[in-house]
């Protein structure tokens, strides 16, 4: 299995509070991604990174920011959590731009109350 760890695995937070999710990899892969999974929507890309300090928006980036100061860490921040951000968040990594195969973490279940 690819060395990819998400933390925390579960979190409950209050509306309006900032939340940071962490993705850590030991594979030295260049590309890292944050997805959210919701019923009826599948997996939707929030943000991705193609190198240290190089990030770009995905299809559902509003309300989220990311940072990547080291190859191994990719942080996802909910600036002011809302109930619509209750979801399961997955981090993924891949070696190549073609992204022919991405490896996923085990997910973070976030509940915003």
């Amino acid at each position, binding site marked *: 299995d690819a060395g990819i760890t998400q933390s925390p695995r579960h979190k409950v937070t209050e509306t309006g509070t900032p939340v940071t999710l962490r993705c850590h990899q030991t594979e030295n892969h260049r590309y890292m991604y944050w997805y959210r999974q919701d019923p009826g929507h*599948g997996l939707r890309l929030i943000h991705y990174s193609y190198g240290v300090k190089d990030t770009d928006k995905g299809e559902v980036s509003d309300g989220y920011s990311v940072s990547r100061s080291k190859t191994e860490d990719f942080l996802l921040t909910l600036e002011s959590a809302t109930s619509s951000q209750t979801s399961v968040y997955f981090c993924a990594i891949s070696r190549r731009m073609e992204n022919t195969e991405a490896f996923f973490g085990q*997910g973070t279940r976030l509940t915003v109350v």
Partner: protein
Amino acid sequence: DQQVKQNSPSLSVQEGRISILNCDYTNSMFDYFLWYKKYPAEGPTFLISISSIKDKNEDGRFTVFLNKSAKHLSLHIVPSQPGDSAVYFCATGGGNKLTFGTGTQLKVEL
């Protein structure tokens, strides 16, 4: 607008029979196509892929077919086993990222 569609949210198949999961996409510029499998409380895992220059790729019990003119992708599992019960996502790729479908819940019954 959903660029990748899996129109069947669920599928039930008997053990030993063939499972066929379908996926349609809209962007003819996609370069490669993948299937992922997901069990509850786990992350998706890569299953099989196919590039746009091929129309079939086989790996054991799993075969992926690509019909570029119809913009249609399918995954065949034969014979189906109870351990295949999971959610299956198709994904299409181009550039730096993958675009996923909404998933199909496959249940293989004894």
